[in-house]
């Protein structure tokens, strides 16, 4: 996007400024006494406008050589060179213009004339070109600032939204009501198990609230939460749900966004194991790979499960959250096979700083 060409009001302003400059130039030309007013107008206004058009190309140089990221001498050199070249070409074009005017309208009496004060013209041309370049740099800076502001705002909104969603996700009403139904069933036939389930539920919700309020927790804490969650689901699903966790002691020290894995586990049960008559396994693995922490959640799945829909939402949330927190330093990969579904997360491996 060119900040002037693609912006109608700015383009008009630009043309207006250059027209005024052209008229001033013609006044200057007239004051030398060498040319008549008419001659000055016919020469200086088109010439100035031509320079204005040439000046628009400075934008592309501004883009290639951004102010903050380029050495000052380099910018000075680049623009010194382009200013010189542009002005020389521009003045040659001016000579052609005079010749053309001399041919086309003899009344102007331009024949065999030439601009004698070429040094002044050269200086003014180069200065105007450099001024135009400066204006382009200014516009580029404005654009960057606006862009950054927009990005920051978006990031903030996104972070808040995902935080809310994360909170809502762990207090999934479906999970809560189903669990309460199981407790109710157990009360009649196995009061001890019922009490155990109530305690698991209480622990799970208490920890969810506690950890959910923080941006980061240790992987150890996240695993603790998942254990409660899986214990509860185990009561519901019975032998259909198998769980395997393999998280190294080293990995457990890592700082991870709170409740990051929880929605993935929930998906693994709801859309994976829960859709299989014979049940299946949910596997959670975590290990450091050099500077990176790798977390995997894998589950068995039915190749023609009732609904693959809905899995996208939870995953999308996790992906966006990782992106907001780590940018390109984190990654989420999905490996979907006919009978297996795996999500692989990588994020910077940072240990919890001991308080």
């Amino acid at each position, binding site marked *: 996007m060119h900040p002037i060409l693609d912006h109608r009001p700015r383009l008009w302003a630009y043309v207006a400024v250059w027209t005024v400059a052209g008229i001033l130039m013609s006044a200057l030309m007239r004051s030398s006494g060498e040319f008549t007013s008419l001659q000055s107008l016919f020469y200086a206004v088109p010439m100035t406008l031509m320079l204005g058009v040439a000046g628009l190309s400075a934008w592309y140089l501004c883009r290639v050589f951004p102010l903050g990221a380029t050495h000052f001498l380099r910018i000075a050199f680049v623009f010194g060179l382009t200013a010189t070249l542009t002005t020389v070409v521009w003045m040659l074009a001016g000579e052609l213009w005079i010749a053309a005017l001399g041919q086309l309208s003899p009344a102007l009496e331009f024949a065999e004339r030439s601009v004698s004060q070429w040094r002044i013209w050269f200086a003014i041309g180069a200065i105007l070109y450099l001024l135009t370049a400066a204006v382009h740099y200014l516009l580029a800076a404005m654009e960057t600032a606006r862009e950054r502001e927009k990005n920051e705002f978006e990031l903030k909104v996104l972070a808040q939204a995902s935080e809310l969603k994360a909170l809502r996700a762990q207090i999934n009403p479906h999970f809560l009501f189903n669990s309460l139904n199981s407790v109710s069933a157990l009360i009649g036939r196995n009061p001890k198990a019922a009490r155990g389930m109530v305690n698991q539920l209480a622990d799970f919700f208490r920890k969810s609230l506690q950890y959910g309020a923080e941006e980061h927790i240790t992987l150890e804490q996240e695993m603790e939460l998942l254990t409660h969650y899986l214990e509860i689901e185990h009561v*519901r*699903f019975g032998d259909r749900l198998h769980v395997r966790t393999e998280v190294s002691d080293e990995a457990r020290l890592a700082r991870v966004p709170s409740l990051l894995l929880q929605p993935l586990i929930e998906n693994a049960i*709801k859309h994976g194991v829960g*859709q299989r*008559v014979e049940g299946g396994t949910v596997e959670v693995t975590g290990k450091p790979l050099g500077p990176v922490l790798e977390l995997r959640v894998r589950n068995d799945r039915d190749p*023609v499960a009732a609904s693959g829909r809905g899995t996208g939402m939870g995953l999308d949330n996790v992906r966006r959250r990782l992106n907001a927190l780590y940018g390109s330093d984190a990654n989420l990969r999905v490996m979907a096979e006919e009978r297996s579904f795996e999500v692989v997360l990588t994020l910077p491996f940072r240990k919890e700083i001991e308080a």
Partner: protein
Amino acid sequence: MNERLRVAVVDDEPLARDLIREFLSHHPHVEIVAECANGFDAVREIESVKPDLVFLDIQMPKLTGFEVLELLNGPVPVIFVTAYEEFAIRAFEVHAVDYLLKPVSQERLDEALKHAAERLRRGHAPDHRALVRDSQSKQGWLERVLIREGTNVHVLPVASIDYAEAQDDYVCLHAAGTTHLKAMRLNELADRLDPGKFVRIHRSFVLNLDRLARIELYAKDSRIVILKSGDRLPVSRAGYDRLKLLL
């Protein structure tokens, strides 16, 4: 009130079935004739034992509760049992279907049972077609087609369908060399398939674009498509226009 009531309980969680069984045990006239843990079994059992009333969970392996209803031949009185499906609860209200919310309580179950028994006595045959249609329209483009062959249920992913052919009130689905009949109009099916992947090439044919090998001029102004399998299907002029848009 004390006529015998034959009941089926369908839920994939054993504890949830336990709870309903426990609550039903307080009603001596109720006999549990079937317990099913997934949708496939539910369809089979309900068809074979013909219960008077079904307690039906929504989220189950293989088939959802709605899909079970879709596949049953005749109307069956149902009490849906669900934990929390906003859409479902709204639909139950709209279509006046009995439902229970988990955790299920004895009082609510007694009430629902009484209500259902009354309807039965008055010979109210429930019509769940509108409810099933509602649940389908919530699902977006069709991902799989459910087919009953005798007492067996097949799940056919739509991606495996080569083409569908209209046969009166049935659709004949051609997939990997085999064919399946489904009681459904081709129009109905075509409306629910992703229009980016399936094209109505003819009044009687819907083609999976993936399977298209080439289009040939057959006679002046008339064309046929040749599938990768070598099958040849007629293309109407309107069908050709639709096809061209996607190629």
